[in-house]
């Protein structure tokens, strides 16, 4: 499958500050690619380089196989972008903004425009000045989703939407993908990413620290297990890959790396399982694993405490 977005060794500096440091990222055609990272990690900078707004210092970046700086206009005919903080022209009505952006992206599907306005419950007659943050975001989303494009670049597109609208957004993105579209979705909302994304890249201080499908990433982390047993379990502590073991009489809880899970459950089963709950690693844990600073002390440990 062709890569729609391909970034290799991308470096962008602002004065002495290295915002992007040898960043690599690929997004294949037809996938929804989650782009995760804490504030200031370089998500928006990456997106701005992709849009040809910022000049890169080194590395290569292509969209649809074309250079993002020199061929930006021909690329822009085929994509739509929703910024994280949507600011609109205060004197224009929502409808005017939608149509303006639609025309400038090479056409708007009128039927889809109506559907989307209805789905997002947006009044297009209001002046942009009077829209709330969420409504401004809806304007940008309707304009992007109604455009006839192949790629959506969404920078935290739902940060101002209520949960109902969030669901509508997810449905619309899925419909877009069913039509063969590709999406780069930068987001903080992990539920949204888990729900929508085929693959995820995690960025930290200007580098991609992890990339892969959610299943692949889960493999790297641990499942937490809690059990009540018939008899105290022996030998759990000696198993490699079992961490944070707490045994209080017949109650036991621990977290296990994916490879050690089978052996650990075997031990429990020998002692006789009364109740068993296990939790697969959430994206949250993945996320924290890469941002929690405890990571520095204990490499590879999933951390639950601080989400800085």
């Amino acid at each position, binding site marked *: 499958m062709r890569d729609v977005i391909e970034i290799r060794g991308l470096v962008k500096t602002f004065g002495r500050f290295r915002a992007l440091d040898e960043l690599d990222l690929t997004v294949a055609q037809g996938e929804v690619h989650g782009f995760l990272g804490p504030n200031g990690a370089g998500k928006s900078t990456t997106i701005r380089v992709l849009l040809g707004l*910022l000049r890169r210092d080194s590395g290569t970046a292509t969209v649809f196989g074309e250079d993002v700086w020199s061929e930006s206009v021909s690329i822009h005919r085929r994509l739509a972008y929703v910024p994280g903080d949507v600011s609109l022209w205060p004197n224009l*009505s929502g409808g*005017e903004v939608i149509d*303006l952006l639609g025309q400038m992206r090479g056409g708007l599907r009128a039927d889809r425009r109506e559907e989307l306005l209805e789905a997002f419950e947006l009044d297009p007659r209001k002046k942009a000045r009077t829209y709330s943050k969420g409504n401004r975001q809806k304007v940008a989303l309707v304009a992007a989703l109604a455009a006839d494009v192949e790629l959506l670049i969404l920078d935290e597109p739902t940060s101002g939407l209520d949960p109902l609208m969030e669901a509508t957004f997810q449905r619309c993105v899925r419909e877009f993908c069913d039509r063969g579209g590709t999406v780069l979705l930068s987001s903080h909302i992990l539920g949204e990413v888990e729900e929508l994304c085929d693959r995820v890249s995690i960025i930290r201080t200007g580098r991609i620290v992890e990339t892969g499908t959610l299943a692949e990433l889960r493999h790297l982390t641990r499942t937490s297990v809690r059990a009540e047993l018939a008899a105290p379990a022996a030998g759990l502590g000696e198993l490699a890959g079992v961490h944070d073991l707490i045994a209080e009489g017949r109650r036991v809880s621990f977290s296990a790396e994916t490879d050690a899970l089978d052996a650990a459950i075997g031990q429990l089963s020998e002692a006789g399982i009364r109740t068993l709950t296990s939790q697969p690693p959430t994206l949250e844990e993945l996320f924290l694993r890469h941002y929690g600073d405890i990571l520095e002390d204990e490499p590879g440990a999933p951390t639950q405490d601080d989400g800085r």
Partner: protein
Amino acid sequence: MTGTLRLLRSALRRDRWMLLWWAVGLIALYWLTAVSVAGIYDTQQALDEAAAAIESNPSYVALSGPAQGVDTLGGQVAWNCQVFGGVVIGLMTMFLVIRHTRAEEETGRDELLRATPVGRLAPAASGVLVSLLASLVIGLLCGLSVMATGLAPEDSLAMGLGLAGCGFVFTASAWTAAQVASTSRAAYGLAGAAVGLAYGLRAIGDVNAAWLSWLSPIGWYSALQAFAGLRWWVLGLSLAASAVSMALAAWLITRRDYGAGLVSARPGPAAGRMGSAAALTARLHRPTVLGWMAGMFLGGIAYGAIGDSPGEMLGDNEQMTEMLAAGGVDLLDGFYGTALVMLSVIACGYAVGSALRPRHEEESTHAELLMSTRATRVGWLLGHVAATLIGSLLVLASAGAGLGLGYWLVTGDGAYAWGITWPVLQYVPAVLALSGVTRLLYGVLPRWCALGWLPVVYVAVVLFFGEMLDLPDWSRWLSPFEHLALVPAADLDPTPILIIGAVALALSVVGQAAFRRRDVG
């Protein structure tokens, strides 16, 4: 009003540099004028000649106020400073007040403040207080600086307090404007128009309809008659007017909804017809251009309506007529030639503001959204350049048309009216050259774009004070307006027009080329 004092402190802190620059500018204006007037007019004869020149030339009166006591040093200083100072302090208070009221409300920062235990009027009141305090302190310092050169203390003080009085009235009018308009842009427009109106009313009033000057706060400043039979009671007019206007603003605040103006936003069309960056650019520039066209048209009419009275005033004075005829300058031609230069220098304000528009679009991330579409950088910026060009042409043409129309309405002399209409177009390249400096900054040093206002200040200072401050020739040479022939008093000279046009083009092209290569946002 709880919390006003604390907010006042933080506002003073936020504004400290801005306040310092306004203060330095105004005090320098008063002090330098006082010093240089004393230097230039070292004999009573020199003063008498200067006074005769001012009294005989209504364009001087229209520019700088009535000739009162101009045969004394103090009178000269007052005449040179006051009207211009009144305009400057009007602009200062406008920026201060709206920045702390409507702009804060528009950006939502005010909301954050009002949620804390402060009174409903406190955030606005602190901004207004900053402006009142600044007016008073700057006024006093200006008065002291004039006094320091050895002029009569009481009259010097009156000059300073008169300036503060102007500041008070314009503070109040700007605060009212901030209640009426629902955006800071519109509020600046209204408040600026109030300053312009005050200047225009007294320009007509001082030349041939004295009662009009009594409607203008800048007129009151002149009517204070510092160094020409001081009348302290006139200051009461400024205080009363500002009190009334501030009460009106405070009443409006309690009457209107938070975030709204007096006129509520009407719904717009559900579908748009704009399909390109160019159409959007035209739409964004349109209200500003129309506003300036209207203002300059009215300003032009105000000058034109003086009609032949510059000449009539001379009719009684044979000696003066002979003197001017010997100099080869027709008085009427000189008057209207000067009016055209002055209107054109004011139009530079439009051109630079217009050239700053792309920066505003970029800072508010609108440009980012547009450039994620098929709009090109070059095309987008060229659209704004074209808007500035066409806008400058229209604004100047409106000024010329107003001038001609005003003259024609009063005198019925169509041929002469046309003769003072078309020459305005020779100033188009000069106006564009000033916006070209802003364009260059925008491409090369976007963060320093606002420095584009400096050339406008410079050109205005050279025009209004070049003679009096005895600026060196090279410094006048820098102002494009100094190179153009004073049509209709002189014949049109195309060479400087073409050279200035080439400079304007070069500045703009370099700016645009630099913009192509830099980061956006």
